[in-house]
């Protein structure tokens, strides 16, 4: 019998190899001159790294995400706590949230450009919008799902409202909030790339669209896409680490 | 009560526009007029239908491929181990980043947009179905096996009903994503649909009343799709799954 930890590496490795082989031969057999084989993409990576674009564009994208997401965090968590606490507030805000949520953050691009011009702020505003609503909704639901007993116990020990918020509601809601935060960060990363394809002239999204428009460099397009995927996985892993901290682990099912 | 938030939004909005004086951004009333104008010229129906058409095809194809694949991956642990990292790598890539490739393979047009919607929908669907299968409790599996069910019957009588509630939620959320993405894709890849309406209204003459009109329509249709899907959650075959989440955790 093969051990489980070994299988955890074996199967994904086999898939990766198989995917690369299929990709390579699919390109060869279809005799396409536009779509790059894996090796050309690797060369594309090297070229980007040499030109210094690789690091700079990745940093640009990450900077936008961190700023917009951080802003959404700072405003979204208090808003969510408030709406979770006050049913009246939630009922008033809910239709607005429901209406705004299905609007693609990218649909705000024209508005964003009017407000901030073509600049980093325009993109950061889009990231903010994209992550703000998921954070608010997750926090609100997290607070609402707190068992009444906890809140009553908090009252029983004569905590002030501020203490109840800080010592009961926030820790109790934290696991669910963190899941929301992780999902919101994923969305922010999706959106920054999309926004960069339209609104600015740097970043990984711009790299994708520019490599195509300027000379059909599909090797660079695919290299950029892979980099986007890898960074996205990294962000997700980072957030999952946070979920494994002892102060919140109780809220997640043993995996 | 539930309308007070919307009313407040409208009041604040018009007040902000009035105070700002000369601005490109429209007031609620000019947006309403813009929607009427679109309806009159027939653009309204044309763009809405174009967007819905793309969403429908891309989404349905993703359901047909993604749900069975996700169920399979959830059922076969080795298959899941093999494919999960690949799925994790693809997930954070914005569907829009595929636009160059979509255009390369399918040309500029509906097919490229449908492909983007398909890509955007299939990953969340696979993951939902996979997780739903994973959360079927061992007790329910064992009970089914104890009564001597064949694998086919086990799938039909235990697996299918057990995953339905989670699956329906996943279908609803994914339709939301598909709707988000079609609008974005239309801003880049095609020349019809609500996304195109927004970007075109801005580029051709800064008609911000039309921009916001497009956004309002997107929001309304999104809410409509969402509540239509919520209907499904109220079916008895699904509604049992939303009442006591504690039940599933206990096992």
């Amino acid at each position, binding site marked *: 019998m093969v051990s489980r930890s070994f299988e955890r590496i074996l199967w994904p490795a086999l898939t990766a190899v198989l995917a690369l082989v299929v990709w390579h031969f699919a390109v060869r057999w279809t005799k396409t001159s536009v779509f790059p084989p894996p090796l050309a993409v690797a060369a594309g990576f090297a070229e980007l790294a040499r030109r210094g674009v690789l690091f700079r564009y990745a940093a640009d994208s990450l900077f936008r995400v961190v700023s917009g997401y951080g802003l959404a965090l700072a405003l979204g968590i208090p808003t969510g706590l408030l709406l979770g606490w006050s049913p009246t507030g939630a009922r008033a805000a809910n239709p607005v949230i429901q209406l705004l949520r299905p609007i693609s953050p990218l649909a705000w691009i024209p508005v964003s450009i009017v407000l901030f011009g073509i600049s980093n702020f325009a993109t950061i505003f889009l990231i903010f919008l994209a992550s703000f609503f998921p954070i608010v909704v997750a926090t609100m639901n997290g607070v609402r799902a707190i068992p009444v007993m906890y809140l009553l116990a908090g009252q029983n020990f004569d905590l002030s409202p501020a203490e109840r918020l800080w010592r009961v509601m926030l820790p109790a809601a934290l696991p669910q909030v963190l899941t929301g935060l992780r999902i919101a960060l994923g969305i922010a990363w999706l959106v920054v790339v999309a926004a960069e394809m339209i609104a600015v002239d740097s970043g990984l999204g711009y790299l994708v669209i520019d490599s195509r428009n300027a000379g059909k460099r599909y090797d660079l397009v695919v290299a950029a896409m892979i980099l986007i995927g890898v960074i996205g996985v990294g962000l997700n892993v980072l957030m999952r680490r946070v979920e494994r901290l002892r102060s919140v682990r109780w809220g997640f099912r043993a995996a | 009560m539930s309308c007070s938030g919307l009313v407040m939004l409208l009041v604040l909005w018009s007040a902000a526009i009035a105070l700002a004086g000369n601005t490109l951004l429209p007031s609620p009333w000019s947006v309403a007029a813009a929607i009427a104008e679109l309806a009159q010229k027939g653009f309204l129906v044309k763009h809405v239908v174009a967007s819905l058409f793309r969403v429908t095809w891309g989404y349905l194809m993703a359901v047909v491929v993604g749900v069975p694949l996700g169920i399979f991956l959830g059922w076969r642990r080795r298959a899941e181990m093999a494919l999960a990292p690949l799925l994790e790598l693809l997930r954070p890539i914005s569907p829009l980043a595929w636009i160059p490739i979509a255009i390369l393979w399918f040309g500029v047009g509906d097919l490229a947009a449908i492909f983007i919607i398909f890509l955007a929908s299939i990953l969340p669907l696979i993951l939902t179905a996979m997780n739903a299968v994973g959360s079927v409790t061992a007790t329910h599996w064992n009970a089914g*096996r*104890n009564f001597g069910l064949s694998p086919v019957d086990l799938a039909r009588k235990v697996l299918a*009903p*057990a995953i*339905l509630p989670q699956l329906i939620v996943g279908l609803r959320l994914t339709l939301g994503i598909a709707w988000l993405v079609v609008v974005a894709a239309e801003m880049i890849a095609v020349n019809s649909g609500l996304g195109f309406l927004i970007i075109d209204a801005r580029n051709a003459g800064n008609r911000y009343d039309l921009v916001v009109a497009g956004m309002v329509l997107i929001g309304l249709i999104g809410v409509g799709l969402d509540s239509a899907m919520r209907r499904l959650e109220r079916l*008895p*075959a699904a509604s049992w799954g939303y009442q006591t989440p504690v039940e599933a955790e206990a096992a």
Partner: protein
Amino acid sequence: MKPAAELVPDRAKLSIRGLEMTFRAEGKETRVLHDIDLDVREGELVCILGPSGCGKSTLLNIVGGFLTPTAGSVTIDGEPVSGPDPRRIFVFQERGVFPWLTVEGNIGFGLGRLPEAERAKRIAHYVGLVGLTGFEKAYPQELSGGMKQRVEVARALAVNPDMLYLDEPFGALDSITRLVMRSELLRIWGAERKTILFVTHDIDESVQLADRVIVMSARPATIRRVVTIDLPHPRDLSSRRYLELRDGIFEEIGLAHRI
């Protein structure tokens, strides 16, 4: 000396020999069951009694065919157990009730092959037997814990199995419902005479129900003692013999029955 839980082989319905179970998880080996020998007669009600986490549920899961033992054999009617079997139904603590089916649907779950009329008749019979008449169309989440437990027992009985395996079936119920359920089980057992294996950590429960109580040790579980309960049903819970037997087990486990 090992306690004798063995019978003359040809009289045994269920026969366990030299059973060992060791779990491996992340490089750690946990020995759960050690050298278990046990025979159960046709129609007997045997309670397996032990502290929580001692491995008695593992034993029942092996007998039920859901787990494969590390060593040793389990035979029923002379045939080795190779997997779950509809002739022998496992009753989980009410968690095995399918939440997506009504009471009727759950009880009829194992009756797929019967013609519709026969099926309806059987369902009606067992709904009545466990006292759920009037709740046929109810979904599990509308039922109390005791009612759900009865649905599971009825679902098991409906397929007319030879044996029932009950894994702490009343553990999640309040003490009054638990008493009611015990006498219900005895009533049904009296009517249907199934061979029953009943896992519990409740000493009183085992003495109230069983023909024989198999007392297990803590992990790795071995059979410490087999106590034959020579009391006729219905049992008088304040009779001297009942108290004697119960106190004997209390002492065996090392608990003083004084609080």
